[in-house]
């Protein structure tokens, strides 16, 4: 195979008016062969995105090429004339950004944006481009492919937008595709679907690609060749097999270590008995909540329906589900940010007021909410000392020297140097900010911390460090956690109990090892099998599983009657499931499932999937059969 792209000694720096330039990329070499997918992996700050953009002769504002060459089919993009560069971009090399939501222009129709570059570069006429786009929509398995192009970006879902961006990149049949973390922001179920689509079209189009990510498991599925980066330098590169199965370089090993193994029972550590762990810390009883005006116990938009759950002292309860299933809402209701329409939240034996305004200072202190994005959760204009010191002052009435000492103590607790007290959030890295974010909640000396996706925005290594931290905190302070995430592996490693939410209902809950071992609720099963494993060929295998086909083909539909999972359920009993709300029964002590099938049936189905077929065909429309067949 001939070299499509040759990167040699690439250097990129951030020039400074005063002092020497900061080196971002320090001499990087790698090649991309035609039709090959090369993955650049590393943490944020490793320069992977900067390098990938280099192949479009582009640097983010404030950065400059300072050396080396990037040859596309022999001609160096760094020395091109502006006109050539413009022709290069979108035509010969196409870019897929991480967040499609931000990258699509909200004011233009999808179709205009998808076809734009192809038409501008005179590769094809508008009509040809439109036809080509529709063809790609079909290939990417987008719903309503013939008309989706006329919609505006805000009118389609995140996963669809991500695929539409793929269409945008591919429409001009570029030689090289640059995918920058294209699935990081997505739910597992969506991610697998997008991955599948990408892989399919890349194969069909035969175009080469640079795939930028920090997620080895994903890389294992899509890449042929892997380049491991750390702070602007290549640490190790080789074929997928080499890197995944026989990594040599310590840094690569470390990445592997941090990367998720598929969620299995027994990954979590045993509870220490330092603290009382038998009494309920917080209890949610028959709670229904939602947004909009509440009319006799029913909100305009119902998000959560009769939720019953509890968190024991010192326990970690993982709440999982796809985005939109109401997991964050659950936490907000408990925190008093959203008063429930029905039901009670009971803490230490008394019912909490619905709205935080009406709760006692004591109650406010006991429950602490930890936001997902440290960037928006920390006031950029306050010193760390104030961010942490304020709750200390409020809830522990410590001021002056005592306050400073306490802040220092907390900083140590979250493994940050004491000097950070005098810094502003903007001066810290993502992981450090997240630790401050946790520290602020800790400073209140809470009984329970509600952590909303605190690791989702972080790189695998940083994330795993944060989880380690949480574990230590739990052991040290005996605080309980409600850990909200869409990442099963993390939950498997951290939680004591799991609550599986689907479309605002709890479909399964119980001790982590119980929930993660058969029999599974069909939805739990879908989630588990959607988590990418660091195993070449995993994606294909998984896609062959029939329940994946249907589960992934459909989106969440919030229904008032019947089982909400009906339309995605491979074992749905048509006539029953869509009509009757599923009964909730206790499999083992503390392990509940809501399903029309009893435990035995479910287990049987687990053993020999053929049985599935009967309920399965009903649940699945014809046009999907084809895909399943392949």
């Amino acid at each position, binding site marked *: 195979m001939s070299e499509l792209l040759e990167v040699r000694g690439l250097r990129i720096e951030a020039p400074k008016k005063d002092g020497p330039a900061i080196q971002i990329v320090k001499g990087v070499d790698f090649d991309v062969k035609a039709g090959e997918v090369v993955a650049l992996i590393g943490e944020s700050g490793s320069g992977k995105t900067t390098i990938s953009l280099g192949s479009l002769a582009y640097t983010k504002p404030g950065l400059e090429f300072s050396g080396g060459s990037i040859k596309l089919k022999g001609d160096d993009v760094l020395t091109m004339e502006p006109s050539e560069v413009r022709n290069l971009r979108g035509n010969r090399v196409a*870019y897929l950004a991480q967040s499609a939501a931000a*990258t699509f222009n909200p004011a*233009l129709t999808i179709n205009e944006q998808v076809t734009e570059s192809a038409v501008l570069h005179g590769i094809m006429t508008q009509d040809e481009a439109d036809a080509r786009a529709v063809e790609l929509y079909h290939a990417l398995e987008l719903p309503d492919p013939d008309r989706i192009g006329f919609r505006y970006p805000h009118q389609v879902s995140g996963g669809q937008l991500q695929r539409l961006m793929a269409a945008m990149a591919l429409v001009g049949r570029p030689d090289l595709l640059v995918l920058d973390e294209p699935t990081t922001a997505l739910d597992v179920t969506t991610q697998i679907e997008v991955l599948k689509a990408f892989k399919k079209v890349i194969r069909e189009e035969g175009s080469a690609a640079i795939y930028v990510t920090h997620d080895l498991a994903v890389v294992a599925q899509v890449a042929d060749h892997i380049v491991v980066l750390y702070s602007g330098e290549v640490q190790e590169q080789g074929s997928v097999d080499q890197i995944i199965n026989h990594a040599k370089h310590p840094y690569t090993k470390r990445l592997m270590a941090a990367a998720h193994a598929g969620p299995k029972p027994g990954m979590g550590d045993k509870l220490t008995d330092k603290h009382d762990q038998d009494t309920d810390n917080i209890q949610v009883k028959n709670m229904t909540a939602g947004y909009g005006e509440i009319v006799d116990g029913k909100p305009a938009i119902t998000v959560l329906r009769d939720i019953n759950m509890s968190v024991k002292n010192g326990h970690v309860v993982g709440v999982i589900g796809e985005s939109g299933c109401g997991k964050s809402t659950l936490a907000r209701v408990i925190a008093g940010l959203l008063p429930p329409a029905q039901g009670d939240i009971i803490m230490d034996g008394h019912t909490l007021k619905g709205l935080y305004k009406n709760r006692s200072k004591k109650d406010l202190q006991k429950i602490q909410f930890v936001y997902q994005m440290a960037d928006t959760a920390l006031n950029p204009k306050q010193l760390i000392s104030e961010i942490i010191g304020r709750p200390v002052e409020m809830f522990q009435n410590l001021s002056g020297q005592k306050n400073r000492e306490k802040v220092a103590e907390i900083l140590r607790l979250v493994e940050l140097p004491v000097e950070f007290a005098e810094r502003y959030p903007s001066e810290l890295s993502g992981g450090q900010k997240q630790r401050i974010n946790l520290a602020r909640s800790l400073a209140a000396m809470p009984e329970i911390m509600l952590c909303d996706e605190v690791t989702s925005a972080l790189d695998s290594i940083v994330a795993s460090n944060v989880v380690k931290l949480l574990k230590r905190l739990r052991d040290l302070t005996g605080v309980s956690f409600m850990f909200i995430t869409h990442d099963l592996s993390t939950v498997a490693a951290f939680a004591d109990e799991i609550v599986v939410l689907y479309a605002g209902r709890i479909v399964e809950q119980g001790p982590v090892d119980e929930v993660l071992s058969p029999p599974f609720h069909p939805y739990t099963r879908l989630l588990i099998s959607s988590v990418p494993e660091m195993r070449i060929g995993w994606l294909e295998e998984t896609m062959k599983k029939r329940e994946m086909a249907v589960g992934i083909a459909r989106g969440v539909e919030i229904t008032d009657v019947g089982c909400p999972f009906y339309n995605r359920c491979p074992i749905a009993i048509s006539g029953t499931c869509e009509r009757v709300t599923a009964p909730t029964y206790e499999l083992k002590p503390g392990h509940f499932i809501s399903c029309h099938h009893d435990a035995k049936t479910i287990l049987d189905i687990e053993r020999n999937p053929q049985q599935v077929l009967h309920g399965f065909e009903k649940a699945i429309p014809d046009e999907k059969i084809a895909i399943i067949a392949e």
Partner: protein
Amino acid sequence: MQRMVIQRIFIGLVTLWVVSVLVFVGTSVLPGDVAQIVMGQSATPETLAAYRAANGLDQPLYMQYATWLGGMVTGDLGISKAGGASISSLIGGRFGNTMFLAGVVAIISVPLSVILGLIAAMYPATWIDRVLTFGTLSLISVPDFFIATFMVLIFAVNLGWLPAIAHISPEDTMMETIRASAMPLITLIIVVSAQMIRMTRAGILNVMNSPYIEMSILKGVRRNRIIVRHAFLNAIGPIVNVVALNLAYLVSGVVIVETIFAYPGLAKLMIDGVQTRDLPLVQACAMIFCGTYVILIILSDVAAILSNPRLRNPK
């Protein structure tokens, strides 16, 4: 979307009412009584009394307000306390003049400023941008009566190309009218455009940092298309708002230009009203101005809604 528009309109009405109260109270606390001012130096107590009685100035304030508001609602603007002419007749012609002035200025300056603003935004920190920035800055940075007088000296007195005063009359043809009002037109176009150019530029640069602009660059889209198609569409909201405010200014705020060019417009009429303590006149003008402002703002809001798909057709 209808709901939004209706909401805007309702808010507008409330505003109008608040203005009516503000203006009425505001004007009636002015020192020096109408009679005294109208009758001039040589008035005697009797003549004054006679005058007050004749004009209902002896009634309590709230009574006057009630009567007036009633009139307003039924479209009766009342009688000018000075001169005794009906206010509608006083306003009638001037309203036309003002609208003509504002209209022509708008037609010319709005496209002009938007285009120049776009150009400036297209080449930021280049010489063309600097020239535009500095030019517009200089124009909005000197008092407008200075600009106006300067223009008169150049075009009317020295060159004698244009009349120094805007002498327009109904029987003039369009062209005559335009020539007659050339000076105020030019002055206003300069003053107003300068503002709008700057705002357009700012508005565009504001959205220039969004990821979708970077994406369009990475798609190899040409500079001018990026600005016109990608950036401008998203900046319409704020830009339209600025345009609306400037138009409102053209209707109500151009006292100085009207004075210097003896252009019979509403703004000057209102100032005269204040000076002659002609309260009904002042109030009527105030309501007209506020009305125009409210309408323009509503229009700009609607435009903003239309330019934004999210608001235009939600999911």
